Each structure stands twice: as structure tokens, then as C-alpha cells.
């Protein structure tokens, strides 16, 4: 295969974690289009290079690519002036003079490690943390508890330097302070990419996958059956106690962990998460602090019916970007104010949407989440802003969800359920919804494939406890897979080959896949046709 042909097939989302800021595909976001960007900036750049490029033609797919939903542009394509650090800690008012003075305080032991007491690799890791911590105004390093979660999941070539660093750590005998969880792998060669074309994409696009998996195993994450972005579900079991300091990466996990579990982590990027895991320490700032967990927004939900959780999250992410919101008006949807195995998916959907459309790393829900219960409106900072989310606002947001399929009037070709990964409850719920829908229609098979994304251990539980349903799901055309769905959705050419539908506002945010309410999706899955209202 010629290099050029290969490049056209590269999975864009080899870059894309199931986390915060992502690359997206042409026209998939309302945040910016090339035209808008041109309007926002100055005149379009001349083709001539400043430094005299030695060539290399810009790949075709670059012209089709939007940058990110967090590209600093508003819906009008103009810069918002937002100064997000993507850590969850706004530094909008920072000054160079004050910031330059800042020096973290180290303990004698930490200083000794920095000086090489535990070897050159550990000294370097400590130095990275000190420089990084000073950069973001950390007071000190704190000891970590619970278990880490890493979003470093694709074995793409450009991550070679990062993987090499971790390999050197493993060779030096370093290990995470506790066994850790990792985001799902970017493909499933057994049940999804099980054809020549897709195999070529994954094997050429992720040549370092084995290296990455191997280094994770040596550093403390051997269990592929627990690979999941929803690391906090019971079956995966990474749910530290409230108040535990951790250093997680993966925007949706950080968002859920901080908010619903009550753990304390900043939004870490790939690399920093594992460096913290290896030193068992993290710089203390931002969302780890009491001050950083205060809410700058009150989100007053006043919908006449149950809100669409994905739409609500999308709206809030766009509104607050990086700030912490306190939701009110939704406690009634959580019986007794309790988050359970059967309802946590509502907050998962809402939170992950806000982490994708903005970079929300923490939210509170009055009367439901740990701090929302214990502190309530005392969480609000002086001068907080209010955002009212009502029926009209919900409709306004839904109207921004365009039809981005290249063939707009075509029939759907596949359903993508579960981003972040499905919980056990969701697997059962969707199994029943779809199979009962088929029974009602007198059909045995779904009209389109239905991909159910979940950790392998969640699928195993379904087989164990609901074997009849699991068998029926399998026979009907529902495929349970442990891979990352949104990564697949970003694969080059995906939108040419697939007209997807989903229940995930996060997936919608990063792909051409269209978002629909559950019952509408069931109808689509059963009939293979779009409803007239869509």
C-alpha cells in the first residue's frame, strides 16, 4: 500500500481519547467551521511558509477536519476570550509577576527523591511534577490514594516518545502505587474490525498497541477485561472513597469521579496521570482544593418533564466551559437523593456531555452528589451566575444538533449505544427495549447492527445473570464490545461508510453520528428507517 493511500485511511481518533478535547470530523460541531474560523481570524494564510516548508502536502483529511469543540471559538466562530487551562482550575486572573514567584513546598522526603534518592527515573518524574505543579500554582504535592485511571489507550505512532518514557520506567522497576484502570482499547478485532478493510486501518494506525498494552501491564494495569472509560462501575471497581486524592485522566471519568464519587482529581492529560501514579503523588491545586470545588454557576433546571440528560450536559458545557456548576431542580429524578447502579447512567450521560462540549471536570447536584448534599448552596461563590434550563432552552440546544451525514436522507446503518461505556443496568435496559421492540414488530433481528459498548466484565455479568436476555440480544444483532466507540466513530472514512445513530451526546459531539432519545432509537433499530420527525 502506498503511504499516501494509507494516510487517507488513518483513524483520526488515533488521537482521540474518550476524554475532553478531541478532534472531530467535518461539520460535526457547531463550534466552528473553516469558514467561521476564517471570519474570526484575519485574512486566510498564504500558502507560502514562513520557514520554507520542505514540502509534504497537507493530507486530504486535514481539510475536512474541525479542530475541537474546545478551540476557543464561540458558536459564531469568534474567539470567546476563554482562558481555560483544561485542568478544571481557571487561571483567568493570573499575572506573570505573581505566577513566576510561586514555588511549591516539598517535604524532606520529596526533596530527597528529587535529588536522586530513589534513582534517576524517579528523580525525573518528581521534577516533572514540581515544574508542572509550580506552573499551575500548586501549594504542595499530596499523597494519592484509591487507584489511578489512565486515558493513554491508543497505540498510535505519535505517542512513541510517551510510551518509550513509560517503558524506561518499567525497565527501572517502577510501578503504579496501586493497580490501575485504563480506557478501552481503540478497536475490537473479534467483533467489530473483523474485516480486511477495518483490520488494515487498525493494524497500520495503531502499530504501538502491543507496546502500550505491555507497558501498562508492567506498570500495574494488566487486566484487559476491565478496560473501560466508566472505570467506576461496580464490575470494574475503581471507585475510591469520597475525599480521596487521585490523579485521573479521561474527561468523563474525572467528571463522574469528582462529582458523584466525591474524589478529588484535576483533569489530567495523558502522561501526567501515569507520572502521578508512579510517584504516588500529585500537585495540589484546582479541583483538588476546597476553593477550586466551589461553584461559579447555578444551573436551574425547570423543564416540565425529565430533562434529556445528554442535551442538558451539552448545554451546560457550552455555557460554563471550565467552571464548576451546581445543578438544582433534578434531585427529584434520584429517589431519596441516592445515586444507585440503576440511575448512575443519568449523571454519566449528563456529565460526560458537559466534559465534551466544554471542559467541566466537576459539577454538584443539590441534594444528590456528596458535596451537593453536605454543602448545598453554600458551594456557590459570591457573585455566581445563573443559567436557567427550561423546555425552550432544551429545544434550542437540540436544534443545533445538525444532520451531518454526507447522505442526509439515507437510511441509518448502525446504532452506537454507550459512550461512556454502558453500565450493567443500561445493558439490561437496552436489551429489553430492543428485543421487546422486535417482538412487538414480529421480527427476530434488528434492521441495523447495534453496538453495545461496555467493559468485558460487564458483558460477563450480563451473561451470568441474564443469560436468556443476553442470548436473545446476540441473536437479534446486538454486539457487546469492550472497545471505545467514539474512537471508531472518528475513523477516517467512517462517515462515508456509516450513517450512525446514538444515545450519547458525547459521541454526537465528536462525530457525525446523530443523537436521538431512547424510544426513537429503538424504533430506528427495529425498522431501519428514520422517523419522519427526525
Amino acid at each position, binding site marked *: 500500500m502506498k503511504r499516501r493511500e494509507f494516510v487517507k485511511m488513518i483513524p483520526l481518533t488515533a488521537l482521540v481519547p474518550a476524554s475532553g478535547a478531541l478532534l472531530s470530523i467535518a461539520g460535526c460541531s457547531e463550534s466552528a467551521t473553516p469558514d467561521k474560523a476564517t471570519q474570526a481570524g484575519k485574512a486566510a494564510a498564504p500558502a507560502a511558509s514562513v520557514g520554507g516548508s520542505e514540502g509534504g502536502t*497537507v493530507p486530504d483529511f486535514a481539510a475536512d*477536519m474541525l479542530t475541537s469543540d474546545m478551540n*476557543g471559538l464561540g458558536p459564531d466562530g469568534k474567539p470567546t476570550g476563554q482562558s481555560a487551562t483544561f485542568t478544571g482550575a481557571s487561571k483567568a486572573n493570573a499575572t506573570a509577576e505573581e505566577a513566576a514567584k510561586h514555588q511549591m513546598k516539598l517535604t524532606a522526603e520529596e526533596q530527597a527523591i528529587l535529588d536522586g534518592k530513589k534513582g534517576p527515573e524517579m528523580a525525573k518524574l518528581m521534577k516533572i511534577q514540581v515544574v508542572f505543579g509550580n506552573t499551575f500554582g500548586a501549594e504542595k504535592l499530596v499523597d494519592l490514594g484509591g487507584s489511578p485511571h489512565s486515558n493513554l489507550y491508543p497505540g498510535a505512532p505519535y505517542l512513541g516518545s510517551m510510551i518509550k518514557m513509560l517503558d524506561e520506567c518499567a525497565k527501572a522497576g517502577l510501578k503504579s502505587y496501586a493497580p490501575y484502570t485504563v480506557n478501552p482499547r481503540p478497536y475490537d478485532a473479534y467483533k467489530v474490525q473483523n474485516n480486511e478493510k477495518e483490520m488494515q486501518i487498525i493494524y497500520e494506525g495503531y502499530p504501538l498497541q502491543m507496546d502500550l498494552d505491555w507497558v501498562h501491564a508492567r506498570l500495574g494495569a494488566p487486566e484487559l477485561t476491565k478496560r473501560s472509560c466508566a472505570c467506576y462501575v461496580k464490575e470494574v471497581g475503581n471507585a475510591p472513597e469520597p475525599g480521596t486524592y487521585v490523579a485521573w485522566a479521561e474527561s468523563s471519568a474525572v467528571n463522574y469521579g469528582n462529582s458523584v464519587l466525591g474524589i478529588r482529581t484535576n483533569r489530567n492529560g495523558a502522561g501526567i496521570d501515569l507520572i502521578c501514579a508512579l510517584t504516588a503523588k500529585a500537585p495540589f491545586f484546582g479541583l483538588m482544593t476546597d476553593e477550586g470545588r466551589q461553584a461559579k454557576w447555578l444551573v436551574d433546571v425547570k423543564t416540565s418533564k425529565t430533562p434529556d440528560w445528554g442535551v442538558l450536559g451539552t448545554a451546560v458545557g457550552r455555557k460554563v466551559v471550565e467552571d464548576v456548576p451546581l445543578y438544582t431542580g433534578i434531585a427529584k429524578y434520584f429517589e431519596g437523593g441516592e445515586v444507585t447502579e440503576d440511575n448512575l447512567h443519568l449523571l454519566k450521560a449528563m456529565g460526560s456531555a458537559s466534559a465534551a462540549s466544554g471542559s467541566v471536570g466537576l459539577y454538584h447536584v443539590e441534594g444528590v452528589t456528596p458535596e451537593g448534599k453536605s454543602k448545598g448552596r453554600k458551594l456557590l461563590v459570591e457573585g455566581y451566575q445563573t443559567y436557567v434550563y427550561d423546555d425552550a432552552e432544551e429545544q434550542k440546544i437540540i436544534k443545533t444538533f445538525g444532520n451531518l451525514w454526507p447522505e442526509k436522507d439515507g437510511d441509518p446503518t448502525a446504532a452506537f449505544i454507550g459512550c461512556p461505556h454502558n453500565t450493567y443496568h443500561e445493558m439490561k435496559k437496552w436489551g429489553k427495549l430492543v428485543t421487546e421492540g422486535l417482538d412487538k414488530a414480529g421480527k427476530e433481528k434488528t434492521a441495523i447492527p447495534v453496538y453495545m459498548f461496555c467493559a468485558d466484565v460487564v458483558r460477563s455479568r450480563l451473561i451470568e445473570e441474564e443469560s436468556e436476555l443476553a442470548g436473545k440480544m446476540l441473536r437479534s444483532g446486538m454486539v457487546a464490545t469492550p472497545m471505545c466507540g467514539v474512537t471508531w466513530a472518528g475513523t477516517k472514512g467512517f462517515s462515508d461508510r456509516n450513517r450512525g445513530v446514538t444515545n450519547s451526546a458525547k459521541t454526537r459531539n465528536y462525530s457525525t453520528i446523530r443523537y436521538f432519545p431512547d424510544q426513537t432509537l429503538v424504533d430506528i433499530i427495529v425498522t431501519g428507517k428514520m422517523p419522519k420527525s427526525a
Partner: protein
Amino acid sequence: MAKKTFKGRPILPGKLEGEALVSKLPFNLTGSYFENMFAGNTKSAPCTDANNPDLFKKDMKGAILCTSQCVGSTMGAGALMGVSEMGVGLKAFLFSHHIDSIAAGGLIIDDVWYDRRVITIDLLGDEFLEAVNTGDPISIHEDGTVEVG
């Protein structure tokens, strides 16, 4: 043009003179380096972010890049380390705003682990980005002072 002086915070200090390459829009780390990351180009670093009219197609190899902050995938740190390893990374990165975690992670890890330094200064202020234009002569000093013009 009259020389203008700005004082920022030197995160990874250094001294350098050269020409500015300016992105008035936030800089998308991963979106800008596709040709290096995937097309096998190890000689130059043409910006592949079609949404960035200031930089699209311009060679960023060895540039003194001036922008507000970085955006894009949280894997962006890996992209910065990747182009650095190829020898087509930036020489200096100057931010008008507070540096973001995406850029900070990659630049700091690369500096400490691999001893590959990209001089990094942030908090130069909005006036800096308003004043500086591509091609302007620029002097960077160890203490975070940046002279334009």
C-alpha cells in the same frame, strides 16, 4: 517598527532571537501536526489545521510560536513530544494567556525526561498577541522578557 517589551513568566526559560510565527487563534496541538504524526514528514512541520488561517500550511519547524493557548485532544502532549523527537518541534512557545495543561504536560515532560527544551513563556498578556505579527523580529530573555520589533 518601534520595539515593544512584554514581561511573562518563564516556565522553561532560555534566550533566543528570531522571527515570530503568530496564531491569533488558540493553537490546536494535535490538529496542527498531522503531517508529522501520520504522513511521515520528518523534515518540516507544515501546519495541518485547516481551521487556523494564521498558520495553515506554514512551516512551524524551529519557530517561535506566539499564541494565546493550546486546545485540542488531551493526547496533545504526546504530539509535542513526537515532533520534538523528529527534530521539527518549536524553538520557543510564547503564550499571551496562562498555559494550558495540554501544552504544559508535553513541554515539561519532554524537557525533563529527554532534555529537549522548547523555551516556554506564558502570561505575556493580550497586548502581546495584539502587537506581534508573523515575521516580526523577536528577542526572548531568560527572565521572561520578550521584545518585539
